[in-house]
């Protein structure tokens, strides 16, 4: 080769020889396929990718990606990844995690990684159930969910992962769905170019322990009626016939309006994913809990003006070195008061 051009990578280059051990029909297959399709398109050498995971079905992910991979312990992937990124900011670090791993046992690490804006991409596989331990409710399970550990219904109210991420000052927050392959790949590509923390919730079906977890969204008819696809610079329109939209009220709240004589697309909110403040994205993230409102998918927030944590850390080393000079061990040994014994 005469130039330093990257070798053309393909999906196959990111597949391993390991037998994939998810249940047949699991949504994780679709996510794996999407990621393996997107990675070769990013123009990054394969050896620069690191996929880190915790524990759970989703956390088997690194074994099936032919990159550097670290299958760590339950909930701790963001902290492992932070250590990697601090030392090697040049690496492209992705975390594969689940609703239990990221939001229950690892909740603390998730929020702190996000508020620090470590340049890590987090793929949160949300199937609203514990799969690997065979069917207990999770922090995203619906209120009153009947599971193996809650035969009379779960007493907890669920987390909204998107709201949590935005509340943690995440600079990139998006949502996609396992079965929406084109949308998922597109969302992954958006995340890939974000330099700071990128948080992607992927709604995923567990056909064994929580089949139809997202039926209201993924069913053919439901899809257009109950889902709003966010696109930066485009008005918030949804509905099978694109006949509904979301409008801002005088008090700052939002409402769903029919499009027609009274309201046209001009009256609707134009989606601004790049707004520096998170309040608008938070408002969108919460609308699915309100009657008549759709579930948003796509990029809710992509504000990339905040420096990355690993860059701040490394810049500090450079700045102090520039100011004080490269550390001299012999001088350090003799710093402060010394005396000689002759």
């Amino acid at each position: 080769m005469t130039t330093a051009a990257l070798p053309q990578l393909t999906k196959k280059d990111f597949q391993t020889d390991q037998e994939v051990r998810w249940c047949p029909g699991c949504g994780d297959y679709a996510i794996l396929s999407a990621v393996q399709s997107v990675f070769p398109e990013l123009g990054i050498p394969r050896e620069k990718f690191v996929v880190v995971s915790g524990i759970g079905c989703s956390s088997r992910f690194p074994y099936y990606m032919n990159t550097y991979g670290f299958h760590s312990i339950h909930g701790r992937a963001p902290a492992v990844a932070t250590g990697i990124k601090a030392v090697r900011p040049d690496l492209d670090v992705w975390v594969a995690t689940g609703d239990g791993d990221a939001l229950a046992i690892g909740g603390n690490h998730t929020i702190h990684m996000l508020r620090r804006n470590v340049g890590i991409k987090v793929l949160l596989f949300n199937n609203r159930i514990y799969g690997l331990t065979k069917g207990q409710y999770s922090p995203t399970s619906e209120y009153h969910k009947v599971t193996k550990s809650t035969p009379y219904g779960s007493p907890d109210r669920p987390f909204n992962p998107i709201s949590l991420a935005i509340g943690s000052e995440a600079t990139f927050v998006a949502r996609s769905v396992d079965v929406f392959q084109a949308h998922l790949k597109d969302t992954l590509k958006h995340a890939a170019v974000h330099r700071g923390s990128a948080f992607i919730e992927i709604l995923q079906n567990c056909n064994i322990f929580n089949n139809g977890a997202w039926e209201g969204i993924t069913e053919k008819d439901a899809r257009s009626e109950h889902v709003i696809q966010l696109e930066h610079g485009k008005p918030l329109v949804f509905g099978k016939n694109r006949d509904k939209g979301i409008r801002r009220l005088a008090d700052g709240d939002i409402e769903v309006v029919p499009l027609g004589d009274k309201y046209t697309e001009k009256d609707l909110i134009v989606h601004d994913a790049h707004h520096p403040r998170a309040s608008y994205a938070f408002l969108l993230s919460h609308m699915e809990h309100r009657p008549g409102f759709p579930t948003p998918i796509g990029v809710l927030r992509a504000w990339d003006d905040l420096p990355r944590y690993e860059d701040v850390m490394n810049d500090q080393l450079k700045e102090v070195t520039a100011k004080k000079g490269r550390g001299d061990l012999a001088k350090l040994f003799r710093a402060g008061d010394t005396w000689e014994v002759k």
Partner: protein
Amino acid sequence: MSTLAETPLAKSKREVIEQAVIRFAGDSGDGMQITGSQFTNTVALYGNDIATFPDYPAEIRAPAGTLPGVSGYQLHFSSSEVYTPGDAVDVLIAMNPAALKMNLADLKANGILIVNSDAFKEGDLRKAQMTSNPLEDHSLDKYRLFSVEAQRLTRAALQHLGIDAKAMDRCKNFFALGMCYWLYNRSMDPTFRWIDEKFSKKPLVAEANKLALKAGYSYCEATEAFQVSYEIPPAKLEKGFYRSLSGNQALALGFVTAAQKSGLTLFLGSYPITPASDILHELSQYKNFGVMTFQAEDEIAAMTSTIGASYAGALALTTTSGPGMALKTEAMGLAVMTELPMVIVDVQRGGPSTGLPTKTEQADLLQALFGRNSEAPIPVLAASTPADCFWVAVEACRIALKYMVPVIVLTDGYLANGSGPWRIPEIEDIPAIPVSFATDPATYEPYKRDPQTLARPWAVPGTPGLEHRIGGLEKKDGSGNINYEPLNHENMVRIRAAKVAGIAQDIPDAVPEGDAEGDLLIIGWGSTCGSITAAVKPQRAKGRRIGHVHLRHLNPLPKNLGEVMKRYKKVLVPELNMGQLLWVLRAKYLVDAIGLNKIQGRPFKQNELEVKIEELLGV
């Protein structure tokens, strides 16, 4: 009231003595730690050998003047080698009744007792739960009492500065320090320099402190209060340049050194915890040495970020105390399983649970050796003196990098905060720590081992062609692929154990100090080294045949330890716990070793050890 100034006194004379033990005690807001460390620095610079024992309450500010709020700093300095901060005190400075009450028992009969008489009013006495004034009721008659109006005299010296009474009173510790400098014929210059540097942005505060220091010194000179002052000539230590270091400072320096000697970036992931936080504070200052410090969100993140940094090719380190190491336990198992090099420092404190955060103990040994699920052996090292912390840090990094293992370093609160002289080594005398990263895709396998060390290769992300997956699941030796086969698991468990056990071939044999065979072998580890050394010396001088082995390596143990024990009639294992090393030695060597155990949050006194030695020798 002080009557000293009015008493006609003989001209003071100077006496040369060998050693002294001095303790500063006051309220935790009185600046006793600063006073003590300044005195330490001054005598160390003069060339005395030193050992210190700072002893302060866990509460930042317990109610002023009360018994729980008493903070103390003890220093033993000498013209010969010292091993401990001293059992009993020659000079006690008590800034209030509570400090007097809490410390008087340790003052020698006829010892010098300097009290701030201004703090002995009725209210002060009540706070210290005293019913009568000890300065007046003759209860202190067996001591040489110097009752000094430190507060009034300090205010008198500072009144022209125009600062308020509270600010003036904050300087009275320096008045007391000035008195002690006069008493031991020491220069005030090092402390002047320190004050100027510390308060460079507050010249008035600097001036006030310097004036108070001078006032204390001049007071002694003018009043000839003590009649006698003391001279302790410099100690004849090994030739070289010295510096006074606390154990935590020495550890930090050791890790920076290991990073330089291995050519790696030092990464510290840590969560603040007493008494380990000072290591984080120290290392966070060394950014121009490429040292990266990450204050994690919790102990678990501190440990797992350390694992991540190690995986990415750094010399990775985490620092904590017992409760923190308990939280790191699961992740330490991951470090064992992924066979990555890193160091875990446990600065032990009194426990269990929150226990005695500022007091010392050696009760995490079994936690360090065994405190993980399943078979998860980790090499364990312990430092014996504040200066030894430096060398243990370097040695821990060497083992971690050579064998691709996590290594635990045990120190304790006594070593962490205590200081001693550190002979500054020549950089080139410290051996390089060789590190090699895997680069060749043709021969690389994640768990293909070095036949000698059993270390697996270190392949860091970013290396073309070495993409691989590791994790907490059991893996096939060689390929590193997930593997649940029964025989493979047994093989892997045994390999991980053999790798750690094999380090015994790479560490020095145990060589007893004192008699190479005889009636009694004392085996210690960690911070008890000074007390044991101090106790053995006079006992041997009396003709008793005693050896002392102080273990730096606790896992694996020196390979000749079993043989060494057989050369003595009895084996004594003194520990600041319920007998943890004792338990290990008895289990491993089937030896009828005897324990001496103290669990009071304080180090052994020399005398406690001597009594036990004599009991065992039947003398």
